[in-house]
């Protein structure tokens, strides 16, 4: 049973300035450490110090035995770093601040003449601004609170709440702080090598009601853990007995990587279902392989682990290693179209590779950041391993020969341009349109999903300065999309194979026309392409 104590509410922006001066009376469950004696107002400043921690629960997976799960017996307290903390007296905010790298805080305030005091720690950080909120409670920011008595120390600890067979809802406090810590780790890794990086505010939605069912996100039907580009927010599963991801740091940072792509780099990833072994559209292969590789670099830990519940009520896991390829292999057809290839290639580019003869690169996070926020963001081509490698080779100090050796190990040719020149498969994705009118055909393979290599082809050409018309002729459904440096310029998306699209072009500017097929019947079919400009 809760007792209700006064506590103040923070604005969602959660700036220090916003915290100061807020004066709102709200109810909050009470408890907390320290004496229950009310403070005595004497106009003398008072200082309270303490530490904010949460239970970190390791997720484990053995790639050989496939055993794994959440190891609650190995849970350890970890500091809440850069977390927002405040002392509140009824409706008045008396002091605010942030924890340091060890979770310590120190707040000095002048107590009021009467009324209880509270210390509140939010699952939110300031630098960068990350807020973990409850999507099933209208986006309320998660926090923990404790009554502050006369003691000068008030620690706050967010427990995992696991009782041995299930969670205690009242004690399941660590989840939002674990999510925050994974995001903070990812952010800090880049900030350590590129201190000027400015991350836009990130809202992360977690709730114990977040189920693996698509539907209404406000009641927890989030589908699965994902990044929503339209909302620029991340959603994380939390449903006990089904799938919880708060301690699956790789899952969390993978989604953070998509947030990074959208806000500081670029993604042309068409999305859709995908899995290892698929021959994907190379935009999708890069986006998903990049997400897993970046999580491994930033955490840093090469083993991806994702836990979930089995029908027997136990927590199990699956995973894969960004560094070590298993035997038998999980990447039977390495190429620029395989997300597993992209993952291991990017990770090998990043790490030192001292124990691998084929890996003599170790570009580190700084160069990875420079490529992602530089040439990968501005490429005229689409974002694939081709654009990344071309951008990487343009960085000072990068050994192109060593990069080519690594590419060869993964059966990718020595890429020289953003268009994939040097790798026959990737180069063939782009049909160069040197002049208009242009007429040609492309052969797709029906029966594959529309985000697979078999149903996509890119056409590249320069604008004429006038209107350009693109037409397709096909017995199967086909879509047309036109991009300029990754920005959608025009599209034709009817359910017909005979699409027509017009767009105004700028002379000399590169445009990429993506033709996507939806042929349902297995087997080849042809798509006619005509590009004209008056």
């Amino acid at each position: 049973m809760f007792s209700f104590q006064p506590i103040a509410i923070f604005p969602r922006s959660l700036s220090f300035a916003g915290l100061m001066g807020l004066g709102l009376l709200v109810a909050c469950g009470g408890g907390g450490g320290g004496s229950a004696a009310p403070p005595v107002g004497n106009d003398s400043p008072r200082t309270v110090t303490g530490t904010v921690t949460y239970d970190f629960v390791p997720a484990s997976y053995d790639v050989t035995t496939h055993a794994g799960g959440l190891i609650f017996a190995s849970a350890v307290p970890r500091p809440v770093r850069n977390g927002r903390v405040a002392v509140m007296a009824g409706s008045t905010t008396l002091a605010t601040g942030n924890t340091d790298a060890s979770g310590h805080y120190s707040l000095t305030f002048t107590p009021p003449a009467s009324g209880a005091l509270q210390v509140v720690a939010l699952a939110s950080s300031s630098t960068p601004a990350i807020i973990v909120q409850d999507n099933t409670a209208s986006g309320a920011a998660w926090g923990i609170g404790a009554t502050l008595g006369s003691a000068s120390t008030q620690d706050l600890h967010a427990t995992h709440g696991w009782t041995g067979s299930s969670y205690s809802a009242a004690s399941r406090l660590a989840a939002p702080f674990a999510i925050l810590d994974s995001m903070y780790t990812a952010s800090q890794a880049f900030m350590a090598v590129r201190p000027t990086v400015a991350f836009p505010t990130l809202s992360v939605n977690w709730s114990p009601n977040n189920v693996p069912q698509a539907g209404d996100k406000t009641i927890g039907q989030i589908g699965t853990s994902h990044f929503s580009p339209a909302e620029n927010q991340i959603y994380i599963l939390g449903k006990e007995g089904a799938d919880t991801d708060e301690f699956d740091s790789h899952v969390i940072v993978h989604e953070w990587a998509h947030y990074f792509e959208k806000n500081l780099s670029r993604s042309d990833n068409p999305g859709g279902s995908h899995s290892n072994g698929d021959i994907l559209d190379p935009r999708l292969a890069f986006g998903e392989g990049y997400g897993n590789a970046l999580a491994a670099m930033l955490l840093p830990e090469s083993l991806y682990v994702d836990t979930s519940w089995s029908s027997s009520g136990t927590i199990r896991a699956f995973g894969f290693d960004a560094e070590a390829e298993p035997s038998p292999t999980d990447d039977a057809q390495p190429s620029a179209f395989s997300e597993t290839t992209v993952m291991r290639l990017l990770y090998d580019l990043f790490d030192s590779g001292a124990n691998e003869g084929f890996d003599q690169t170790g570009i580190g996070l700084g160069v990875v950041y420079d490529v992602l926020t530089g040439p990968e963001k501005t490429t005229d081509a689409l974002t694939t391993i081709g654009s990344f490698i071309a951008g990487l080779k343009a960085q000072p100090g990068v050994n192109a020969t060593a990069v080519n050796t690594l590419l060869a190990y993964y059966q990718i040719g020595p890429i020289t341009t953003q268009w994939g020149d040097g790798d026959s498969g990737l180069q063939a994705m782009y049909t160069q349109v040197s002049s208009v009118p242009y007429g040609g055909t492309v052969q797709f393979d029906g029966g594959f999903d529309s985000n697979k290599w078999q149903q996509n082809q890119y056409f590249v050409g320069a604008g004429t300065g006038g209107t350009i018309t693109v037409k397709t002729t096909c017995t199967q459904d086909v879509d047309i999309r036109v991009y300029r440096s990754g920005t959608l310029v025009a599209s034709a998306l009817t359910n017909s194979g005979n699409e027509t699209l017009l767009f105004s072009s700028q002379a000399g500017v590169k445009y990429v026309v993506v033709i996507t097929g939806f042929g349902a019947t297995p087997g080849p079919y042809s798509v006619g392409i005509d590009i004209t400009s008056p």
Partner: protein
Amino acid sequence: MNRVGIALAALLLTLPGCAIAPKKAPAKAALIHKSKAPVTVTTVFGDGKATVTLRFDQAVEDAAIGIRGLDGLQVANVPPVEKTSFAKGEALTLEVSFTPGPGRSHLAVDIEGTFRGQRRMAVQTFAVGHPTAEQMKASEGRILTTPDGQRLKVMPVKPE
């Protein structure tokens, strides 16, 4: 055909055709999600019965399938699945009896198996019923709204 190199085209010839109907291009904004087992699970609820269909988007070996209830939903008569290998495009339909829990409860379907050499899992839930007022409260803690519309949810810590 000018889209691929010879080696890759030859490699593709070794791939079997599949019966999976491609979908219209998904909305780019909605589908950047975590990896999961390539299985599509659907459920149709009837009068005390649920028909669960699993469609394998890739071939799987060592598959294990479970069906259970959450939030008080009770499942009965779950047929045993002795088959552990399924081909790409193959579908498995299971009919179970269930009794809903109070308010909103969930039927959960989980699949684990080896897909192209990688162990993968997936869990999918299916909601039944409408939430009670207690369930609408969402979880422990107090939900509060500031005059400017900002909301905060503070969970009480237990005494040390």
